[in-house]
Every structure is written in structure tokens, then in C-alpha cells.
């Protein structure tokens, strides 16, 4: 028996602006633009279809503005998609056969609190920088239905230990932390509810290489020790090569290529992927 995907995304589309009937056909890699020339709307992503297996890391690469972040933000309900569907098929999720984009806001919150984890490029978006590291994690645990203060604190300590934050700094606000530490607190928070789907948006961008390396090793460790399906957004092909077995290449809001990571890197089919690969190596 083949295992079922943890997450299925079908034809996800996000248009900023009023939108018109010509938006989709007038944008995309064939036109090298994502702004509709008729109505001026921005087509951040369109017709995005993919799935992710439990325990798999799916990479999404593409240049700035290609629509990478829009995809994960829609999946995390940070923004509302213009069209498309996503199905979260994991145990304990009673909305497995429903398009999660169409759930009411209460049920969306439940899906997010119980099944999703998110790490933003900017820790400011994922953390309250003035609330203690332990408090940030407690917030997520409370949202996921934890009630016992002692257990919450115990779990918080374990998560921080796992992400290599010294325990004595648990009661300190992340504002005082280095960028790499803030990112590790964010990861600890994202893991708090044992997410079925973990969304990682440029989590090492802007960090220096030794700090990057430790974060990437942490993600590898998480892959080994959990069964979470992960979506890893990056513009760095080195990160993809290290972590993901399958990769999606985005350009102007469209998937131009999807395949095994080694195939994408060694035998890129789309002209844009070839450019991307050759720009790095």
C-alpha cells in the first residue's frame, strides 16, 4: 500500500487586486510577468498543484516575487487565496475531505492550532519578541488545548532544549536573542503542537553560514524524529540539495518544473531552471 499524502493542494491561486478574466492568461513565465496588463492586478501564484507525504521535505525554489511565500501563507491562513483547494489528510483532523480554504474561521483556527506549524523568515512575524521564549511556546500550546501549567512549562523546556536554547534563557524575551536563536525559538514554537505539516519560509535567509548550518541540521533531526510533512521555501539551491528529495521550481507565480531534487539540479528541463542551476554552480 502506498502511503497517502499529508497535504494535497489543487490549483491554488492568489491574485492581489480586483482581478479580471484576462489575469491568468496574460501572466506567468511565458510572459515573464506577474502583473496583469489589463487590470494591473498582481497574480502572486496560479494553478499551484502538489502534494506532500508524511515525513517528506518538499522544496520550493524561485526568485524573489515568484510567489513562494504566498503559497505557504495561504496554507497557514495568513491570507485568503483567490481560488483553489487544499486537503489536510492526517489523523485527528475531521476536515480531511474538506477544502480547508472553505472552512469557517473557527475551524481554520483549529486546523492551524492542532495540525500546522510555521516558521517565518522574520522572527518578528512568528514570535512576540517581548514575551518570554517559554511564553511564546505556551501560547501555542494553550491554543492547541493544553491546560496544565506545569505540563506546558515542562514541554516548553523540552522543546527549547531540543532546539539548543539554554534553559536559563527560557524566561527571557527573544528580543534580546541573536537572529539564529530567535529562529530556533520560532522552530520550537512551531513544533509545540507536533504539527502534521510544517511550513518553513526562508528560515535560514539572512543568517550567517555557521548559524545556518546548525538550523539546517536541526531540520534534518526533525525529519528523522517526526513524521511531519514539511514545505521548505528557499531561494538557495544548496539548502534544497541538503534537505529535500523533491523540488518545485516557481517562476512568475507558476510551477515551471517539479521533480526529484537531483533531477532538477542535474537534468533541469525548463529553461528557467537551467538558468537558476547554472547561476549557482
Amino acid at each position, binding site marked *: 500500500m*502506498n502511503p497517502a499524502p499529508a497535504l494535497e493542494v489543487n490549483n491554488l491561486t492568489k491574485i492581489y487586486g480586483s482581478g479580471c478574466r484576462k489575469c491568468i492568461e496574460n501572466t506567468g513565465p511565458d510572459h515573464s510577468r506577474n502583473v496583469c496588463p489589463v487590470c494591473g492586478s498582481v497574480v502572486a501564484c496560479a494553478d499551484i498543484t502538489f502534494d506532500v*507525504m508524511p515525513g*517528506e521535505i518538499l522544496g520550493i525554489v524561485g526568485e524573489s516575487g515568484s510567489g513562494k511565500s504566498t503559497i505557504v501563507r495561504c496554507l497557514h491562513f495568513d491570507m485568503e487565496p483567490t481560488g483553489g483547494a487544499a486537503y489536510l489528510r492526517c489523523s485527528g483532523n475531521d476536515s480531511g475531505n474538506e477544502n480547508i480554504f472553505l472552512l469557517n474561521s473557527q475551524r481554520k483556527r483549529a486546523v492551524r492550532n492542532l495540525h500546522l506549524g510555521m516558521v517565518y523568515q522574520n522572527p518578528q512575524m512568528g514570535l512576540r519578541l517581548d514575551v518570554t521564549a517559554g511564553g511564546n511556546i505556551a501560547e501555542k500550546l494553550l491554543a492547541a488545548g493544553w491546560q496544565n501549567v506545569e505540563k506546558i512549562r515542562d514541554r516548553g523546556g523540552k522543546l527549547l532544549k531540543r532546539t539548543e536554547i539554554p534553559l536559563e534563557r527560557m524566561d527571557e524575551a527573544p528580543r534580546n536573542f541573536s537572529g539564529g536563536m530567535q529562529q530556533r525559538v520560532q522552530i520550537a514554537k512551531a513544533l509545540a503542537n507536533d504539527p502534521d505539516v510544517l511550513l518553513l519560509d526562508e528560515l535560514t535567509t539572512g543568517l550567517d553560514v555557521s548559524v545556518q*548550518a546548525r538550523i539546517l*541540521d536541526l531540520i534534518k533531526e526533525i525529519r*528523522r524524529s517526526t513524521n511531519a510533512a514539511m514545505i521548505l521555501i528557499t531561494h538557495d539551491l544548496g539548502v534544497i540539495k*541538503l534537505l529535500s*528529495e*523533491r523540488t518545485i521550481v516557481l517562476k512568475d507565480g507558476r510551477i515551471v518544473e*517539479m*521533480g*526529484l531534487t*537531483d*533531477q532538477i539540479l*542535474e*537534468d533541469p*528541463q525548463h529553461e528557467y531552471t537551467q538558468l537558476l542551476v547554472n547561476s549557482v554552480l
Partner: protein
Amino acid sequence: MHVLGGKEIKGFEDVSFSVKRGEFLAIIGSSGSGKSSLLKCMYRTYLADSGSMLYRRDSDNTIDLTTASDHEILRLRRNEIGYVSQLLQAVPRTIALDVIAEPLLQRGIGIDDARDAASGYLSRLRILEDLWDAYPSTFSGGERQRVNIARALIRAPRLLLLDEPTSALDPASTAVVVEMLRAVNHGTTMIGIFHDLSVVRELADRVVVMKDNRMVGIGTPEEIVGDRGD
């Protein structure tokens, strides 16, 4: 021919052959003749343009490696098909023991058992115990390649693809690698690219000759390599 466990591979500019279970097929030919491309197509690192490559699985169902889904290929790579590159792909910040143990960890085997199995390989490969917790990037070429092959063998693959595993090695290291490959149990089918014809004579059951992206001959090592008087 045996149907049971047979694998048929076609395509790639008139390349057609089949390999039986447990057979060792060597591919020889000059540089640029398409040997590596052929092997990479089998592993799906390259996408074939036409033709088919039929792989018979343990469960006896047949799967076309050129059209199988990415998920299916990943499952095969995890459980059945191994690939050994010319040189060890660096796994950064990972000690030799864990580089070899990693495929088992991916399969969900516990760290202690995986390391046990990995250390078994390291000692059989005659890698000094002092080096087990060192990074392979500091190893000599020969040591690194031994780690590379152990990493593929630890999965006990049904099909092992070898892309010039000995071409960067000195004679002593080549001998260790050849010995390792000879010791692989007979359930494993191997397809390997080699330049060294004496290695081909020692290992191969049959040999495919490539020239100008075409297959120009197939036969036993005696027929193919012996004729050349090398």
C-alpha cells in the same frame, strides 16, 4: 531466459538489454559514449526522452522507471535501488559512522542499531576506528569511496547502480572495493560502469559496450574484453 526477477531495460538511442536477478552487468566504453547518462536515467537523476526501463520489484509487479511517479521512485530508492557515484557526495557535518547509518535511519531504524550496522561495515572496510567519528571530507579518496559504497550496500539494495566506483582510486583501494562488491550477496543485481578492464573481468557476468551514445555490443567478459587482448 528466466522470467523470475528479470529486469528489462530498453531505450536510450537504441540501447536495449535485460539483466537477470543477481547478475553483474558491466558497461564499458570511451568517455562521452553515454554510459553515465544511461545509468543516471535508470536512477531517474536524468529523465529519459523515450523508451522504457522495466524493473521487476520484489513483489513481482513491474514498474517502468521512466514513467513512475516521483513518490514511487523515492520509495524504490529508499528500499530497493542504490546508486554509487564516482566520489562520495559530501554530507556536511556528519561523521563517517552516521554517513553510513543514515539510510537506515531514513527507514526508521533506531540510531543505536543503525550505528551498529554501520560500524560493522567500517571494520570490514578496514577503516581505522579512530576515523569513525571523523568527517569523511578529511578522508583520502580511497577511504571516502569505501564509505560511499558502504552507504549504498547498507540498504541491501536489490539493484545497485555503480557509476565508475573505482576510477578515482589507486590499485590498493580498487582491490578493496572489488572485494566488497564480490562479497555482495547474490540477490543483488548490479549494473556498473568501469574503465579498468581487469576489474570488469573479475566482477562482471556480462558486458555492454557503448560507443557514440549507442550500444555496440554485449557479451561475456571473455567475448568482449578477452578479444581486445587487454
